[in-house]
């Protein structure tokens, strides 16, 4: 089992202090930690999904409208495409980073931001439309859960947009330092993860809600 007692120690071979310890890899440590945060964020969504599952029975909508009555699948599909394209643009921006092309990275992020703003704009428009036809979170538990899940996701997108703005400033100001590159990679994971979450929200909240 243990190696500590059995093997005889040759005093001439043993290394007690690491000479060549270069310290940790700053970027990897940062991205790993951020990945931990993202997974924890995934748990947050999972909990919201659990709540939505429990509150999506027909009686959960009380006497109010059900998603079948107010969800517009094709409208939300356009939202989906806006988000996917935004993620793609950010991916291309990261591909430009490989060559250190500042212009490529900035263009990609700007494209990604514009598409993200389109997504948020469509979301706000959708919410306003739903409110105008009386679909508000105060109506029923089911609608509360619907709004919680979709708007928490929209809030993530909003935070991502602010983050992109900050990154644009930092790239221009500082160039590709270790910190900036680490943050760009973290933001890539964050942004892509929002797309993954959106797949589930789109399919299980919008499409399934529309079906039932």
């Amino acid at each position, binding site marked *: 089992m243990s190696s500590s007692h059995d093997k005889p120690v040759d005093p001439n071979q043993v290394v007690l202090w690491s000479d060549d310890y270069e310290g940790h890899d700053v970027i990897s440590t940062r991205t790993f930690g951020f990945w931990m945060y993202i997974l924890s964020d995934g748990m947050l969504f999972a909990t919201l999904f659990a709540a939505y599952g429990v509150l999506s*029975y027909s009686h959960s909508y009380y006497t109010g409208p059900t998603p079948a009555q107010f969800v517009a699948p094709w409208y939300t599909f356009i939202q989906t495409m806006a988000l996917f394209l935004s993620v793609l643009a950010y991916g291309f921006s990261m591909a430009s980073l490989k060559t250190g092309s500042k212009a490529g990275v900035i263009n990609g992020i700007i494209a990604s931001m514009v598409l993200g703003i389109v997504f948020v704009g469509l979301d706000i428009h959708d919410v306003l439309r739903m409110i105008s036809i009386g679909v508000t979170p105060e109506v029923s538990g089911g609608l509360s859960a619907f709004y919680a899940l979709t708007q928490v996701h929209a809030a993530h997108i909003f935070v991502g947009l602010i983050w992109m703005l900050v990154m644009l400033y930092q790239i221009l100001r500082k160039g590709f330092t270790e910190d900036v590159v680490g943050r760009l990679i973290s933001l890539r994971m964050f942004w892509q993860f929002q797309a993954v979450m959106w797949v589930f929200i789109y399919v299980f909240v919008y499409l399934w809600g529309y079906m039932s």
Partner: protein
Amino acid sequence: MSHGHSNPIEHPEVQMASRGSYLTGFIIASLLMLAATILVSGQVLAPFPLLLTIMGCAGLAAIAQIYFLLHIDISEHNIWNTVALVMFIPLFVITIGLTWWMFSQLYLRTMPMIPGMPGMH
């Protein structure tokens, strides 16, 4: 905590970005979402098979995005991310699945006035 002095651009996690892989992920996910939307808006299938189909679409799209976009694989630089994800996925399933199961059992027993549930005796 001495920093590596190499150029951060050359860091493997920067270098693993790839236009082709991002494009592939995008196309697969988009097509699957398109398919799901068409199926649902056309109501071409009975509800239950339709549900299974769109669940499949969601699963495949998510896997495609996780693989092509988030670089979740067993390469040296991503192994820990992959391990972490593999540990989390059962928890997602437990959180949603067991909660759902439990409340379906609870509703079955305590909400008799709901249509389709056993009546009140």
